[in-house]
């Protein structure tokens, strides 16, 4: 099997190139020679609506953050096709393990605006009990793993999760989203190697959006993107135009067949661009040109898919304005409700550290309660949770 060569020749990877799979041109027209995937009208409309809703939610919540109503926010803007397109190609019960910028996946699966808001405001209805920063969503019923800030940790976890699915034999897989920056972490290498060795039904979905905060992709890796790394694991790989929802859908659909039917991992690299700032704390003008952003704004993935849908006569301008209108209203109404809700109860400080609260934690909480009873004004949320009356002055603390 070994092929011998008696001349010392070095290779570098430039011997081959990995094309970018695309179906829709910027005008939403199928490329010549391309065939549309089997995507039915209702499915396509659902995909589109989730993209649009994600865009609108992001716009509104960034504005809320700017108004000081929210401490922090991260937008998916520019990458909606990659996220929602991939999600639409999955079985609803497939596990999704995302990085943080993938709210579109939840939107597609039916996370309600209420549910988003409760997390964003960390109120008493937040599934995460107000413990994590905004955008760290999770949903058990929607098979969406709660987001964790440390980058790339979810990638080997996805390999393990999928291994469990394979043993369970339920024909499901796991898809994990991550950025091209996170792919530099050691956990990435661990995850892909173990997945290929252990033959696991997992889809590694890399959102290559050109930046990791301020670090451009050329300072992140020297190769032609992330895709060539798959070769090092003998793993199926495809690169796709991340701004083309149709192509992303089709690539993911096919990847899923490989994953589930052959128990083999697949790497998908979606080429896109982070149109917004990294987060509400970031200002990209310090590290990239506006003109670069403008070029990408022309490739808007939401618009491109809308054009295709419209051409299919599956979507109309009227529907568009109606949906925009109703979504904006829903977001605003929900926001107002969510921000007024009480904080999680004081006990949530010590629950879920262990399955059962330990005696030591009970002791610590008791001490804290005694302390808050002595100084209720200093701890308005804790005092409220303990039903203590506090002077009205102190409560302004809560109304930021």
């Amino acid at each position, binding site marked *: 099997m070994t092929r011998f060569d008696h001349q010392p020749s070095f290779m570098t990877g430039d011997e081959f190139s990995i094309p970018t799979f695309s179906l829709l041109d910027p005008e939403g027209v199928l490329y010549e020679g391309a065939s549309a995937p089997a995507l039915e009208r209702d499915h396509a409309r659902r995909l589109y609506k989730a993209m649009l809703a994600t865009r609108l939610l992001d716009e509104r919540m960034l504005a809320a953050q700017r108004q000081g109503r929210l401490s922090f926010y991260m937008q998916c803007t520019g990458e909606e096709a990659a996220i929602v397109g991939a999600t639409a190609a999955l079985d609803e019960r497939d*596990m999704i*393990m995302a990085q943080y910028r993938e709210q579109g996946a939840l939107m597609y699966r039916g996370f309600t605006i209420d549910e988003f808001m409760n997390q964003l405001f960390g109120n008493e209805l*937040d*599934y*995460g*009990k107000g*413990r*994590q920063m905004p955008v*760290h969503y*999770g*949903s*058990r019923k929607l098979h969406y*793993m*709660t987001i*964790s800030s*440390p980058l790339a*940790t*979810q*990638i*080997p*976890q*996805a*390999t*393990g*999760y*999928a*291994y*469990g*699915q394979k*043993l*369970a034999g339920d024909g499901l897989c*796991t898809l994990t989203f991550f950025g091209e920056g996170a792919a530099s972490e*050691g*956990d990435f*290498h*661990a*995850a892909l*190697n*173990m997945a290929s*060795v*252990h033959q696991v039904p997992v889809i590694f979905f890399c959102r290559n959006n050109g930046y990791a905060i301020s670090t451009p992709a050329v300072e992140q890796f020297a190769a032609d993107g992330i895709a060539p790394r798959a070769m090092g694991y003998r793993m199926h790989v495809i690169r796709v135009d991340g701004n083309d929802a149709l192509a992303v859908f089709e690539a993911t659909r096919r990847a899923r067949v490989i994953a589930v039917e052959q128990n083999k991992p697949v790497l998908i690299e979606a080429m896109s661009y982070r149109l917004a700032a990294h987060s509400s704390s970031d200002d990209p003008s310090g590290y990239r040109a506006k003109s670069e952003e403008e070029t990408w704004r022309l490739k808007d993935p939401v618009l491109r898919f809308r054009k295709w849908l419209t051409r299919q006569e599956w979507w109309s301008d009227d529907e568009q304005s109606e949906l925009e209108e109703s979504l904006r209203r829903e977001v605003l109404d929900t926001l107002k409700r969510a921000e007024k809700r009480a904080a999680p109860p004081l006990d*949530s400080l010590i*629950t*879920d*550290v*262990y*399955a*059962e609260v*330990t*005696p*030591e934690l009970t002791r610590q909480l008791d001490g804290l309660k005694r302390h808050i009873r002595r100084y209720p004004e200093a701890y308005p949320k804790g005092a409220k949770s303990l039903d203590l009356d506090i002077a009205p002055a102190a409560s302004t603390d809560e109304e930021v």
Partner: protein
Amino acid sequence: MAKMNLLQAINGALDIAMAEDDKVICFGEDVGVFGGVFRATSHLQEKYGKARCFNTPLVEQGIIGFANGLAAQGSVPVAEIQFADYIFPAFDQIVNETAKFRYRSGDLFNVGGLTIRTPYGGGIAGGLYHSQSPEAYFTHTPGLKVVVPRNPYQAKGLLLAAIRDPDPVLFLEPKRLYRAATGEVPEEDYQLPIGQAEITREGGDITLVGWGAQMEVIHKAAELAEEQGIDCEVIDLRTLSPWDSDAVVESVLKTGRLVISHEAPLTGGFAGEIAATVAERCFLYLESPIRRVTGLDTPFPLVLEKEYLPDHLKIFEAIRESVDF
């Protein structure tokens, strides 16, 4: 009952857990065909198949990342890290992920099924990188349970309890005792409680606290002390996190004196936590300063290992000083 060494007891516990529950899956470097470099997983692949007991690639962060995902899915992974000295590449997966999984998701998801087994400790001419006792890095990490057995009987009962515990458990195995410690162990299934210390010797003059391999050394010191007419009460903590402070406090309220011993370096070692807690809670009852007999504040040496280790003579001296204070 059968006479077993500590490795056999661990192997037996894994065997029972795997036989009982299909969801229990054992993996790690060399744990498959070979049964682990210490042979703790011997024959498990033969018995339960390659899907449930297998070699992983050589990547600790991957092993624990994989294990976290598998546990979140509902399986019951028992991951082996070949030496505790090599657990650090997985530190992020353990400290930032395993420990915080349930809390951060508001209990939507958890990795409670996970058990991480790893051999720790010195006295085997292992030098810097085959001797470390890293427990204190983990006892400062809420969300983890840390369990250390002292002999074969304890090992089997505690490991079975750890595997079935609803929280992730780091199970530190005293490798010096793997073959050296033998004892009668029931062949059937049994569990010992997690979170409970055990008084392994009753006495009224002074309390000695330790865990794992150090218990043998402590008992030897207690015997030396007995020859001098000093009556030691000895406590095996067994679980370091969450630790049974009440048991230690109660004993010190009675004896008024405390010596704690571990192999890890002094500064920041877990003995400091015990001493601080007991000094606070037994303030009016302490008759002499709490003494810590530990490794030096250096990496673990090789040739001068004997000099470095907190052996029975050093503990005995501390007992004497405490009693003579």
